């Protein structure tokens, strides 16, 4: 117990320290103290810090001004808090896992209404839920009604589909749209076919042969 407590107490400052090291030289110097303080706040609240660091690095790479980077990271912190609250409201026991907070924050950023996200969380009591969230968001991006999209994905979960297979469900519905069906028809057709929706193709031999790992960052 003491060991766990010690590790937990150490983890926070270490994360904050490594965040500062990652940000220095990559974002305007004027933004670093404010960003550091936001990261430390996230650590204190048990929220994931990686989305905040990524947002700051993104702003730095895009040569955005310091105040705009800080504002964007502040907004991200707010989204993470909202995601944590939603998870707890939907039935997850606190402390919620950082991965799930990130997933839900992303779903909200992709304009999924909070009640829809809550329904998906409740339908999938055991994480990971990232694929389910992206599947619903993909359907919503294809102008399916978010509630109906969530119904379809929840039905797919009920028929035993999990993880990446849920993305095949949204892809199948989008495919039916391309074939000229209305949104309602596409949903009905895919629901009827569950759980036998076509799987996405595996990477081809030539794609694997061409694939390269990203170059290591310069020292």
């Amino acid at each position: 117990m003491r060991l766990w407590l010690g590790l937990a107490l150490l983890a926070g400052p270490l994360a904050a320290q490594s965040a500062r090291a990652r940000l220095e030289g990559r974002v305007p110097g004027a933004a670093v103290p404010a960003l550091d303080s936001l990261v430390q706040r996230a650590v204190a609240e048990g929220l994931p810090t990686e989305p905040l660091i990524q947002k700051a690095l993104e702003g730095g790479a895009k040569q955005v001004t310091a105040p705009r980077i800080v504002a964007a990271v502040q907004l991200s912190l707010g989204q993470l808090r909202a995601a944590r609250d939603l998870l707890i409201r939907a039935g997850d026991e606190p402390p919620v896992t950082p991965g799930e907070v990130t997933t839900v924050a992303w779903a909200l950023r992709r304009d999924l209404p909070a009640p829809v996200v809550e329904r998906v969380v409740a339908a999938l009591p055991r994480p990971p839920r990232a694929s389910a969230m992206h599947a619903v968001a993909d359907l919503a991006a294809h102008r399916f009604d978010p509630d109906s999209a969530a119904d379809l994905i929840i039905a797919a979960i009920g028929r035993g589909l999990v993880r990446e297979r849920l993305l095949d469900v949204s892809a199948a519905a989008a495919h039916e749209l391309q074939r000229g069906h209305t949104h309602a028809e596409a949903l009905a057709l895919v629901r009827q076919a569950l759980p036998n929706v076509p799987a996405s193709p595996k990477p081809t031999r030539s794609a694997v042969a061409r694939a390269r790992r990203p170059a290591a960052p310069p020292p």
Partner: protein
Amino acid sequence: MALIRRPVPSRARRLLRWLATPRSVTFRVRPVWSLAFAAVVAMLTLVPIGHEGPDIGEHEGIAQFVGRFPGAQSVHVVGSFNDWRPGSIALEDVDQDGLWRATVVLPTGAYEYMFVVDGERWVPDHLAERLVSDEFGRENSIVIVRPARR
């Protein structure tokens, strides 16, 4: 006499007739070679990933980035998979047709990204179906990397 007068069929017609006439063909194959041939065919068709290219881990997948940028001198893909560090993943226009491509091994997961053209122009991937506001006034594209070993 009638037989003598019948015109000789052309070479093409004779070839066509030869091709169209059913013939019996006999193969003499040792069963062991048949089995070996079947095993090779099965291996080539059923095993999706060969040993060429990088070794791909259980939690890794392949992302393919494609963008049309005629006249560009360089195109890079930059995103949360490489800490938004320009320069680590270059796209190539092998055919010089303005279509730039990169095939990259990445850990499975969802990532936001943009293309950087000629080192300064940030462009979303218009072929990507998933877009999200970047909170800086533009839109990032989203790629979901699925495990290559399924």
